[in-house]
């Protein structure tokens, strides 16, 4: 009568394909929701999914349903307290159809929108979907394409080093079989018989006739062997390669971060989060981008990822030192003719006053002409942002950079006042559609 089956080990995720179909269908709304969602949340390098809420338009499953606000109906309800027949109850205002909560009001959201959780991968994929490094391929090095060889079938011509033995021998064998080229063994056999006959001291008439016949056959076969060669030029095949033009995609991203004393914990946190996200974006979308980390106080140095994100240091602020280090690294390792160069700089805008002019000089004269894109992000903590709400109170460095921006298309400045700004700023800076960018 009863049968018990343990299904726990059955593959789970039976709904995965339905889930993907749903995500595919809702892609547009999800994208929008993701962009919305990141405004209000901290960028976390934690695992776990992102909860998003999307409007139900386009995902509706329409049905013929009655309009509950029209017509007449009776509703039997439980829990009468003191109603007697004939009581009149004022109709509640239209939203939240009717008394108490009927269906729809129950989950608070009804059919207008609904929430669900994306996995971290799904979230990042969607978030980075429309971001790209601007001018990824340098115009000047576009012509200098890299050639890569790819296997492309077989060819009748080619250099001996590419001779494909297997295929050649297979063709040869097939041809020899078809054309009945006598095999070595057949010739050997004939020759043996001939020798045996010849060695006979007194051959009979019959034997002599046989010898003649054998000799004739031998000659015929040998002629055939000459006509049908062991390997004919027809058989020969060469492995073929074709050249594929690959555009040069050498790219390097310089991450410049101010870690001086004036940067408070919140500033550093913001800057680090910004770079962390930038890094995530680069690693995810471009497998072959070099990332160079430079941090500076009044001195600047190139550091590895670990140090950049995790170690502490303090000191004064001279921004130009970082720019100089960047300049030097470019000179030493990344010849601008061969490399797409990007840079992102984060700072609180404090700088030794006398240094601003120098920064401007280095940038405009040396760096910007070499760079595809240079993004400056100024981090403010929330107190500062509250104290100086309007844009007139800007830092000196900002002023300086602002003047540069006006004259250079490949330069962008952005301000970040809280974790919630980071996503949008990064998104603006690296939006695929460059028309909306640069402000």
């Amino acid at each position, binding site marked *: 009568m009863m*049968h018990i089956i343990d299904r726990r080990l059955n593959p789970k995720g039976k*709904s995965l394909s339905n889930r993907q179909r749903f995500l595919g269908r809702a892609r547009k709304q999800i994208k929008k929701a993701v962009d919305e969602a990141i405004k209000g949340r901290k960028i976390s390098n934690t695992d776990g999914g992102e909860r998003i809420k999307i409007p139900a338009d386009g995902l509706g499953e329409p049905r013929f349903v009655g309009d509950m606000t029209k017509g007449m109906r*009776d509703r039997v309800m439980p829990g009468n307290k003191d109603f007697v027949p004939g009581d009149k109850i004022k109709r509640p205002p239209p939203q939240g159809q009717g008394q108490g909560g009927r269906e729809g009001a129950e989950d608070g959201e009804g059919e207008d929108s609904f929430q669900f959780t994306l996995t971290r991968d799904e979230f990042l994929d969607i978030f980075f979907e429309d971001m790209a490094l601007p001018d990824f391929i340098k115009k000047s090095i576009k012509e200098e394409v890299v050639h890569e060889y790819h296997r492309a079938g077989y060819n009748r011509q080619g250099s001996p080093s590419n001779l494909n033995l297997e295929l050649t021998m297979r063709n040869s064998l097939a041809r020899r079989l078809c054309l009945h080229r006598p095999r070595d063994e057949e010739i050997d056999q004939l020759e043996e018989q001939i020798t045996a006959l010849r060695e006979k001291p007194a051959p009979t008439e019959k034997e002599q006739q046989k010898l003649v016949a054998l000799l004739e056959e031998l000659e015929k076969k040998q002629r055939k062997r000459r006509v049908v060669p062991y390997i004919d030029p027809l058989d020969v095949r060469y492995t073929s390669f074709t050249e594929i033009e690959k555009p040069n995609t050498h790219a390097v991203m310089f991450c410049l971060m101010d870690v001086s004393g004036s940067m408070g914990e919140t500033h550093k946190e913001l800057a680090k989060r910004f770079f962390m996200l930038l890094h995530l974006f680069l690693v995810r979308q471009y497998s072959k981008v070099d990332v160079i980390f430079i941090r500076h106080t009044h001195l600047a140095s190139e550091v590895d990822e670990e140090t950049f994100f995790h170690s502490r240091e303090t000191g004064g602020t001279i921004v130009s030192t970082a720019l100089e280090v960047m300049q030097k690294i470019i000179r030493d390792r990344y010849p601008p003719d061969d490399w797409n160069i990007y840079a992102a700089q984060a700072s609180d805008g404090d700088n030794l006053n006398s240094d601003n002019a120098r920064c401007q000089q280095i940038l405009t004269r040396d760096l910007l002409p070499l760079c595809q894109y240079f993004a400056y992000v100024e981090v403010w903590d929330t107190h500062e942002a509250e104290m100086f709400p309007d844009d007139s109170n800007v830092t000196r460095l900002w002023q300086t950079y602002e003047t540069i921006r006006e004259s250079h298309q490949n330069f962008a400045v952005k301000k970040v006042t809280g974790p919630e700004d980071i996503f949008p700023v990064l998104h603006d800076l690296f939006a695929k559609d460059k028309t909306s960018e640069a402000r």
Partner: protein
Amino acid sequence: MSASKKVKTKMAPLFDGAEWDFDKVNRSFQAIQKIALEDLGLNVYPTQIEVITSEQMLDAYSSVGMPLMYNHWSFGKSFVRDEASYRKGYSGLAYEIVINSNPCICYIMEENSMTMQALVMAHAAFGHNHFFKNNHLFKQWTDANAILDYLQFARTYIAKCERRYGEREVEKILDSAHALQGQGIDKFTRRQKLDIAAQRQKELEREEYERSRYSELWRTLPEVKSKNTDEIDLIEQELAQKLGLPESNLLYFLEKHSPVLDSWQREILRIVRQIAQYFYPQRQTKMMNEGCACFVHHTIMNRLYDTGQITEGTMLEFIDFHTRVIAQPDFDSPHFSGINPYALGFAMMKDIERICENPTDEDREWFPAIAGNNQPMATLREAWENYRDESFILQYLSPKLMREFRLFNLHDDSAKPHFLVDAIHNAQGYRAVRSALAAQYSVASLDLDIQVTNVDLHGNRSMILSHNITNGMTLEEKQARQVIAHIRRLWGYDITLNSLDTQSGKIIKSYSD
């Protein structure tokens, strides 16, 4: 309680503590089965119990509880929704899912305690199972033997179509078909049994045969022009007869007569229709079905306790759970979301038991046939077999229960600024409240009356649908327009939907695409 009368000897507990294992499940099942078959006299399909994890439970949810369902994004949508609300703790997972099939498949969750497993077995494997096997609606409309095979067939068929015609194309048809799910049910004719072998054969035959039939039908078109109006009327009548108009099963009509669908698209409509049909009895018997299952589990658990087969701890856990399941919040409570079918169902079953065993004078007056007959199980089994929610309430809802639930009827006329309380749980109101409640469970109030009434085969092939308005309730316009767009996709030509006043036959509102 009858249990304490019958049984004297105490037995050893079947299990102790929360952990379950297969041995305990098996032992409990045997004990439960003994009570169910011998004491309650239930008649059930063999049971297949499947242990699953909570994740698998979520999976099963999203595809309307069916173990094999074809793929469609809407199932993904309900999956992400259920998942989100489960993870946030808004809703728990069901403790079981039971499928009306032979053998009857019960899913139980790994995370349940042993008490819950016993409860679930009593509830689903015997309560629901008995109901599925014996209720006349299920017997008439569904075929427990064939459903799993049919679902398998549907899944493979749709996957095959996706490979051949592309996911997008199949999705379009499914979207449109799903929009008409509620209009895909035969309400008046008995359906043929699903037979999988015949199904395949038919599918092939249809592919060959049906096209010719359709062209035959449309070939009458050009001839018509030269005829006078009388003849046209005659032909129209004939045609309507041929088409079986009016037809309330829109999916069926489109499947058979749409001029634009390919045979595979018709087959998909058929699949959606068959599955909708399969769920049709469930909607009409929800309250009774749950009531039956709750009554069965309640009786069985009590009997297990009386005979010492479950411990006091288990019993307390059970009572705690049971009370929560059958709670009925009042209309003014924030938790109120209509009448809880578990609460009303269970209360009615217990009430019938009481009327059979300890009737009052009032009961004797209201239920002379069963009051004091001392055969509660036979009476209940008879009710489970022959009624649906609507008729069950009309027949068995007692004044005592209406008082206990403090039921009242609220008349809502949208033309008036006030709701009117027009009947309550008193002598003048019992019958009115009872019929009003029954009407809420009636087919008429569950389903809208929408039919294909005319197809213009002389002209533009447009289709006219009629919606007969009941109680002045018009259609929700936005969705109605979207559904009409879906019908248009399936029919290929213009669609007009008229909402008609039932009395005067006047068109109140007309929608077209």
